[in-house]
């Protein structure tokens, strides 16, 4: 296929900018309004912090899992996704910023600025035998040290692979670099596979410091993965709406739709496995986690679960639905928000108890972060041609047909 006639330069148009500006402005106004509406008690202050953490982790998770999915394409020798390569890279480029935000937030927790993790408060640990037993793992040094090591390694791979991608465009040996990339992708996947589990223990599971679940890491992983897949989808659809991205054909769209469908099922499977086994055995030390969500967040818990499960199952089952761009857009946006709620439920009951609820502040902060994230991602997309050059699978992806 000839790509010379295609416009491969994306520019963030005035209209898109305006939409995103409005989104960010409305988000910020709602956030400030939501904050000022309440008197500044300790729990209200923590509510602001917890919300910040939800949004940091949601978008950091998307860029991290974008990097994971990108590496998987190399390790699995997949050609179809090469057409999405630049879109993936634009999402991955948020990773350094996300990593800094994660680290700063953790550091502020250690410094006692916020109280997201109870076990960082030495007075609370002295009074709590369970936390004392865990202190060999749950301590500030281990927390910051592991967080830093994980983040530095993730960012190092992401920056390297994004840089190489541009180098190849400018006349590098695509086939040779593909091989190097494949080896490094495998290395990253192994590192990611072991550390993402530990990361999820620190960043999410230890918020409910007494509670534990061996499946937890994989469940968090699946939720973030679906976020990344939807982001790729939405950016692809945005390009199409601008009349660009001619190289993304219906088969590419179909495959991305399949991934949305499949990862939604994976997430549901893992959510259900964890929930069902804990509910079934009904042991006090385990069931407390769901009891807290059941008592105070029941409506959100079940809505989130059924939206994330039933919606993709019913809406994306058929082949035609996966090729219908409007359909993918609507379903994608709903699941995207619903997985934000999933992240919200990971954080809130443990930090706010029964006090958390979705109000102006939550909606506002979500809108503002989504707007900011979209702005950043799209301006990264504008920095490089939309299609890679010199890639050994380029012709295969351009001729992709299922």
């Amino acid at each position: 296929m000839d790509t010379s006639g295609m416009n491969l330069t994306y520019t963030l148009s005035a209209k898109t900018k305006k939409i995103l500006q409005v989104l960010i402005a409305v988000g910020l106004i709602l956030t400030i309004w939501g904050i000022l509406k309440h008197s500044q008690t300790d729990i209200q202050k923590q509510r602001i912090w917890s919300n910040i953490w939800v949004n940091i982790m949601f978008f950091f998770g998307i860029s991290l899992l974008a990097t994971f999915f990108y590496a998987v394409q190399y390790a699995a020798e997949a050609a179809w996704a090469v057409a999405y390569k630049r879109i993936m890279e634009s999402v991955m480029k948020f990773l350094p910023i996300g990593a800094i935000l994660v680290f700063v937030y953790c550091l502020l927790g250690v410094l006692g600025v916020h109280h997201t993790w109870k076990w960082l408060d030495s007075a609370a640990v002295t009074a709590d035998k369970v936390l004392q037993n865990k202190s060999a793992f749950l301590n500030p040094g281990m927390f910051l040290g592991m967080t830093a090591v994980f983040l530095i390694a993730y960012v190092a791979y992401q920056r390297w692979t994004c840089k190489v991608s541009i180098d190849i465009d400018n006349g590098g040996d695509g086939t040779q670099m593909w091989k190097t990339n494949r080896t490094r992708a495998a290395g990253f996947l192994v590192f990611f596979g072991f550390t993402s589990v530990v990361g999820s223990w620190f960043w999410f599971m230890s918020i409910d410091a007494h509670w534990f679940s061996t499946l937890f890491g994989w469940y968090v992983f699946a939720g973030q993965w679906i976020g990344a897949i939807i982001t790729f989808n939405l950016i692809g659809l945005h390009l199409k709406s601008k009349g660009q991205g001619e190289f993304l054909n219906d088969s590419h769209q179909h495959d991305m739709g399949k991934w949305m469908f499949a990862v939604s099922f994976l997430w549901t499977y893992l959510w259900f496995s964890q929930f069902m086994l804990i509910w079934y055995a009904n042991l006090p030390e385990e069931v407390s986690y769901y009891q807290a969500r059941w008592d105070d967040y029941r409506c959100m818990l079940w809505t989130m679960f059924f939206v994330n499960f039933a919606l993709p199952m019913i809406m994306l089952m058929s082949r035609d639905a996966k090729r219908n761009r409007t359909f993918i857009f609507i379903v994608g946006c709903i699941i995207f928000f619903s997985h934000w709620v999933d992240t919200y439920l990971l954080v809130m009951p443990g930090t706010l108890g029964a006090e958390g609820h979705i109000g102006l502040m939550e909606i506002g902060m979500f809108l503002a972060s989504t707007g900011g994230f979209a702005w950043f991602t799209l301006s990264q997309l504008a920095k490089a041609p939309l299609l890679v050059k010199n890639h050994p699978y380029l012709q295969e992806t351009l001729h992709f047909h299922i």
Partner: protein
Amino acid sequence: MQHESAIREPLILGHRTYHDITEDIARPIEGRANKYWYLVFTIAVCAFTWGIGCLFYTIGTGIGAWGANKTVGWAWDITNFVWWIGIGHAGTLISAVLLLFRQKWRMAINRSAEAMTIFAVMCAAIFVTMHTGRPWLDYWLFPHANQFGSLWVNFNSPLLWDVFAVSTYFSISLVFWYTGLIPDFATIRDRAVKPMSKYIYKILSFGWSGRAKDWTRFEEVSLVLAGLSTPLVFSVHSIVSMDFATSIVPGWHTTIFPPYFVAGAIFSGFAMVETLLLIVRKVLNLEHYITVKHMEYMNIVIILTGSMVGVAYLSELFISWYSGVEYEAYAFLNRATGPYWWSYAGMMTCNVISPQLYWFKKIRTSLTATFILSIVVNIGMWFERFVIIVTSLHRDYIPSSWTMYHPTWIEIGIFTGTIGMFFTFFLLFARVFPVIALNELKTILKISGESYKKEAAAHAHH
């Protein structure tokens, strides 16, 4: 128009034509078996017969003939059941998931992998029906109409879910396997010269004519079955894991069990596919089709699933300490340092460490190494189930009931018998069924055949 990148390695070696493929794959069916086939077949049948004898002994005597006791109520029976069910998973993964992922390399291996699934589930069924103690009453495992009796099955029990899961799995796998065989049976039918074999293959091929309409329906049905089988890859072993995980036995009740059992099942299944295919390609001269590249891909799946199992082992170990639950912590301490430490050590070495050798390209492309490691992995996965079942049970909550478990020769005989049965069936399969999906394989010949790839590359240079 499809296009395949030049850097992809060929999946059919040398220069083959469509006719060559038919000839190569029909040869074992139409010709006579060599002496190695008879030798292996005799050994397999002897083991099988021995196993049947031990089964009858068990039925006549009761399961007191086994080593299981009051504390260790499940032992070799369930270990072997889970082991065989797990092995079956690779067949479903190859036929369903790899079809959905459009992996062309699946075409040379899916037929034998699916056959392996069916035979493995049959072996598993023996243990699970026997372990009830009175197998003639096993029809009570199914929910009957209430008029039949007042006792109904317990729908809250994962053991019942297992009955449904495994029987669904078996039926879908059988249908999938058979559907795939129909066009190939028709090819054998069209070539048959003896009236008897022509007649048999005529019945087996369901009047397949090879019309475009037949192929459309064939492809649609394959996709639907792949869609149905993919959740089965997950559900069957998840439910098997729930047989343990829904209980409150330390070491059993852990949330990671469902996905970790699935990963482990695929892991051991691929190892068994490798063991079988390495023999098949040699004995039936199929080196052109089942290539080193196929083995390399399977070895990569083994690294992946082996590492996932590794993450799960370490997560469990860590959380047993992190949870602060002393029973849980002791269960793991006992696994690693108790009287059955050797089975834990064997599991860790065979399942987590040995697959890491495949990071070296030399090892993952060596057929000898692959053959040895595939057996090592299956030993390791057997140990895993033994560790989970026996080590967790033998020291329960009341130290006065702590005991050891030793298998009797009857149990060993039944296990050997299932291995014999597995190979007996597989060897028969290899003689009367086309072991490679020959008609499907032909669809990739011009794209992934070595000589055609070279030709295309030569064209691209001009």
